[in-house]
């Protein structure tokens, strides 16, 4: 069954207040076109899930789409410094920062994948994160009666991922680092895929190289060239430095709207 659709219809599957998992890692293969469309459609009160986020989470906070962010790390890396819109939104109390270790996000997603309510995580015993966050706690190991730390399951309503290739049914493959995208997809109720290239299903059937994400887990496929730009997409393009710098220099929502307009033709063709 073809799930190929335009970006507007795909992002319309996301409802206000949804928990949204975002694929990629820092400035690599983040689904930026889908993120931009979420801002154009003025999504609100989203609960964002990501291991290590950068421009995607920063932009959604700037666009006032976000209620909370569950993540281990939100910042650009060395060259582009901090995620200022995210920081400002948290410091002004507009966005709740639910700090995880990246691994506890993975563990929470694994719990959802396994259909269980929480997951034991080693290592959390030290420090204050377990004291101040209600998604971490301690329980007794019923076998040894020793304490173990656990994290509450996270089941995204929707996960958004950008891949290099997908077929119109939703079978999708990533080249280069896959980060936590497969886990994010399996944990979610719906998956929205944007792809650099739409390929024939036979590309998977006849190849030794199979899809990473199977069609039956995918709700929408959108064909978007440069769908991760200005972030990188392995084997296709590296980051667009100027566009990232331009974004970081934006002062207000009008300037953000103008910045998004520059991508609109490419995103929404």
């Amino acid at each position, binding site marked *: 069954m073809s799930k190929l659709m335009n970006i507007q219809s795909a992002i319309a599957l996301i409802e206000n207040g949804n928990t949204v998992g975002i694929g990629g*890692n820092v400035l690599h293969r983040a689904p930026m076109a889908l993120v931009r469309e979420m801002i154009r459609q003025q999504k609100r009160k989203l609960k964002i899930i990501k291991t290590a986020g950068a421009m995607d989470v920063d932009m959604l906070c700037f666009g006032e789409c976000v209620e909370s962010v569950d993540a281990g790390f939100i*910042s650009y890396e060395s060259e582009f410094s901090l995620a200022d819109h995210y920081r400002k939104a*948290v410091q002004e109390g507009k966005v709740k920062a639910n*700090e995880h270790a990246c691994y506890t996000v993975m563990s929470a997603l694994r719990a959802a994948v396994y259909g269980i309510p929480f997951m034991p995580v080693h*290592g959390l015993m*030290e420090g204050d994160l377990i004291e101040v966050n209600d998604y971490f706690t301690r329980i007794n190991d019923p076998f040894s009666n020793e304490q173990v730390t656990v994290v509450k399951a996270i089941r995204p309503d929707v996960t958004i991922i950008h891949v290099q290739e997908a077929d119109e049914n939703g079978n999708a493959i990533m080249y280069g680092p896959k*980060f936590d995208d497969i886990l994010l997809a399996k944990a979610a109720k719906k998956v929205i895929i944007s792809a650099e290239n739409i390929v024939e299903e036979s590309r998977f059937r006849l190849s030794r190289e199979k899809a990473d994400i199977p069609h039956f887990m995918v709700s929408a496929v959108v064909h978007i060239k440069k769908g991760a730009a200005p972030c990188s997409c392995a084997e296709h393009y590296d980051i667009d430095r100027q566009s990232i710098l331009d974004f970081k220099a934006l002062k207000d929502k009008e300037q953000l709207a103008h910045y998004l307009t520059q991508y609109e033709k490419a995103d929404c063709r």
Partner: protein
Amino acid sequence: MDNNVIKESYLSYRPCDIMVCVMARLIENNNTVFHGVSSHMPMIATVLAKATHAPDAVHLNIPGGVDPEVTTLQKYTSAGSELTQGSVCDFPLSDIFDLSMRGGLDVAFLSGIQFDNKGNVNASVIGDYHKPKVRMPGGAGSAVLIPTAKRAIIWRTKHDKRTFVPKVDFVTTRGNIDKIVTPLCVFKMHKGELLLDSIHPTSSIEEISENTGFDIRYIELKYTKVPTETEMRALIRIDPQDYRNIEFEKK
């Protein structure tokens, strides 16, 4: 800095060169070694260790490369697909965390914003956690890697009284720190206390005291071994663009 200048003066070293060489020397042959995002200095240190005294050390990283043949480093990232090029296996971040949880990760390089002499690490907030004055990026893997890695090595390019404080604002994690490498010195954890391990020859005990928010204590006063000619030559070959210095350029 102009590459030719470095090449001609490979024996003149800066704090960044000392820091990277110190971090490289802390890697032993056969160690499994992990570095994360925003981690140019440990990334270069790992490649340096493999090129010098620890050829069998195993380089692990976020994109999942195992022993990548790193030819071109990137300025903006230490988590890009260049770290999978020439790699022998895909071993993604989730596998690296799992490895550390079961006691199999030898070295994890991590950082933070504030440290105190009890070995507490803050990478989360300045002020109250729920109403922060400053929201930091977050500890990334620190909260589970520092307690579980066999040796957690911290580097921080700022050494001042706002960084090395009497008491951290928030404890992202604590305890199992092996060393902290700064532009001025190396600290080590000893019986639950952060002690001065060695002074970089570019600094002095006075400078360290003036820039540290707790009393400097040590067992033995010694200097950090300076980078050797072999190390500096390897560094310039591995990192011709001088990315090991980018954290200092930002200031």
